[in-house]
């Protein structure tokens, strides 16, 4: 025997279900508001780019910079400074910042862990080790990102295998394994540095400290190509990232093929990180801090989070790089060192409060 079965009330007949969803309680993150906030950050980009073009060892007037931008074919000191010296560097800062922001947001969503980023999961460390090995072996510069991709993906794979299921302490293990891998990679990089000779070792050290000085338009081209491929692949996984926010079992229960999705996300993230590491060395904390700021702005939905992380990361790194080349001018502070000064207090603050991913 079973209990009495109440008659089914069709949803359509339910009085309060007649009104569309949008007309009921206001949404926490209405789309209009999210797009508005993303637009505001996007409009910051030309402002900070213009500012970065103006300041430096020789200051340029805004009018001169705009004139140079509008007339790129003219010859002159301002044109040379804007188009040959500062612009490639600023575009690379935009790419690196955007890329690291996107990679950090994707990793945090994938692992459902607010404390992970390409640096902490060992992806940056693996990419740096492979790139350093490539440099010291005299590999062509264009192949460095491919080597970095291999190293980054290898570390990502180890972390993913360790955190293969959502067992107890799975998230803690991700961080522990990532930190251990980073330490190992760092130790091997030191070994490479010691055997790199006085000149090779120093230039490698400067690259590892993080920075995008001395880059040309050619560097911008191949970095954009690798980065574009990685970000495009990541964008195909936004729905998977959203479903994985519910947990791997829940996502699988709704029909997601979890393992292929996880590997696609990891490979895409490794590609993006590799492009960034190859061009700028190890720039930590961008991938950690930026997704948190972006999440505050637009919420955790991967579609908006990746977009906002790219925009916020681009703005942050352009500002940081401008500071790196101006605060101690004519000397330059490595970008990675500068960001560590901001990033470490942020990380410590983060560990003291629970953050939903």
């Amino acid at each position: 025997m079973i209990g009495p079965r109440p008659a089914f009330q069709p949803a359509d007949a339910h009085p309060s279900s007649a009104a569309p969803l949008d007309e009921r309680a206001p949404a926490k993150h209405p789309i209009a508001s999210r797009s508005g906030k993303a637009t505001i950050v996007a409009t910051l980009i030309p402002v900070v780019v213009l500012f970065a073009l103006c300041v430096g060892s020789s200051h340029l007037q805004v009018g001169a910079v705009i004139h140079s931008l509008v007339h790129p074919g003219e010859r002159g000191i301002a044109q040379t400074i804007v188009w040959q010296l500062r612009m490639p560097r600023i575009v690379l800062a935009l790419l690196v910042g955007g890329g690291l922001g996107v990679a950090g947001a994707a990793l945090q969503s994938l692992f459902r862990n607010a404390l992970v980023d390409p640096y902490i999961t060992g992806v940056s460390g693996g990419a740096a080790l492979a790139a350093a090995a490539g440099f010291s072996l005299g590999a062509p510069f264009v192949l460095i990102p491919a080597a970095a991709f291999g190293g980054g993906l290898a570390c990502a794979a180890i972390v993913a295998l360790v955190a293969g299921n959502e067992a107890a302490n799975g998230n803690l293990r991700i961080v522990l394994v990532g930190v251990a891998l980073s330490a190992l990679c760092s130790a091997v990089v030191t070994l490479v540095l010691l055997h790199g000779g006085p000149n090779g070792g120093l230039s490698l050290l400067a690259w590892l400290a993080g920075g995008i000085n001395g880059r040309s338009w050619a560097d911008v081209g191949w970095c954009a190509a690798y980065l574009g491929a990685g970000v495009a692949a990541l964008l195909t996984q936004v729905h998977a990232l959203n479903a994985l926010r519910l947990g791997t079992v829940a996502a699988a229960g709704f029909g997601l093929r979890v393992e292929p999705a996880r590997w696609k996300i990891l490979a895409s993230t490794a590609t993006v990180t590799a492009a960034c590491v190859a061009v700028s060395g190890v720039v930590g904390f961008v991938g950690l801090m930026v997704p948190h700021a972006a999440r505050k702005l637009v919420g955790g939905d991967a579609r908006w989070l990746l977009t906002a992380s790219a925009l916020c990361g681009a703005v942050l790194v352009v500002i940081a790089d401008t500071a790196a080349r101006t605060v101690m001018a004519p000397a330059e502070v490595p970008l990675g060192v500068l960001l560590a000064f901001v990033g470490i207090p942020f990380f410590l603050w983060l560990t003291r409060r629970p953050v939903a991913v």
Partner: protein
Amino acid sequence: MKPAAALHPAEASHPIALRGQRLRVAYDGRLVFHEVDIAIPRGHLVALIGPNGSGKSSLLRVLAGVQKPASGVVDALSRVALIVPADAPPGDLTPTDLAGYACSVKRKWWQWSLPPHERRLIERALGRCRLEDRANEPVWRLSAGEVQRAWMAAALACSAETLLIDEPTTHLDLRFQMEILRTLRELAGCGLTIVMSLHDLTLAARFADSIALLAGGQLSCGAPQHILTEDSLARAFDVSVTTFPHPAQGYTICVPS
């Protein structure tokens, strides 16, 4: 314990929504269950009971296709969704978001916004789970029972015809347990097939059409009064249980002796 067969002998001719044959699951060489056959008729509410560690969650995962069995075959003759309500969704999500994420698994990647037909499905699913007034509240503001119903609405929005629910009444007080089980009873009443794992034997007898008892690696299926006997429960749970019919409604009440 009788061998597993079609769940309800009287309804063996019912169309089947989900069938598992000769299923076997083992972890690190430890056999959990083997040679398990189960056939869930469409529109049935089935309670899966058994002691802790007997493999209830594993069986649900295998039936949902989330976990591969060591051997055996699962025939999903309907669209199946697995719900694990103990998993807390991120607190900033609303029931609408939750259902949207569940639906987006099947969506093309370039379809970033919710298509109108999915929006209608979500509205209808939220209505069926009585969440229309809480549709845009973040999860952290919902009660535990409402969160469980949000999971169910998400599964319904995906056009699931068979819901496999792992312990829908976990962490719920008696009122919310009744609320959830009544909702599931209503959904089964309008044609949905539901398999839920439960620990409360009396609630299982009160609400389910059929009981599947998984114990000692074997599955026994049938009507509640055939499965919930003192002998079978004593063997399964290794504890003495007294059963007697409810004086008014007739369902089996199970009390540990």
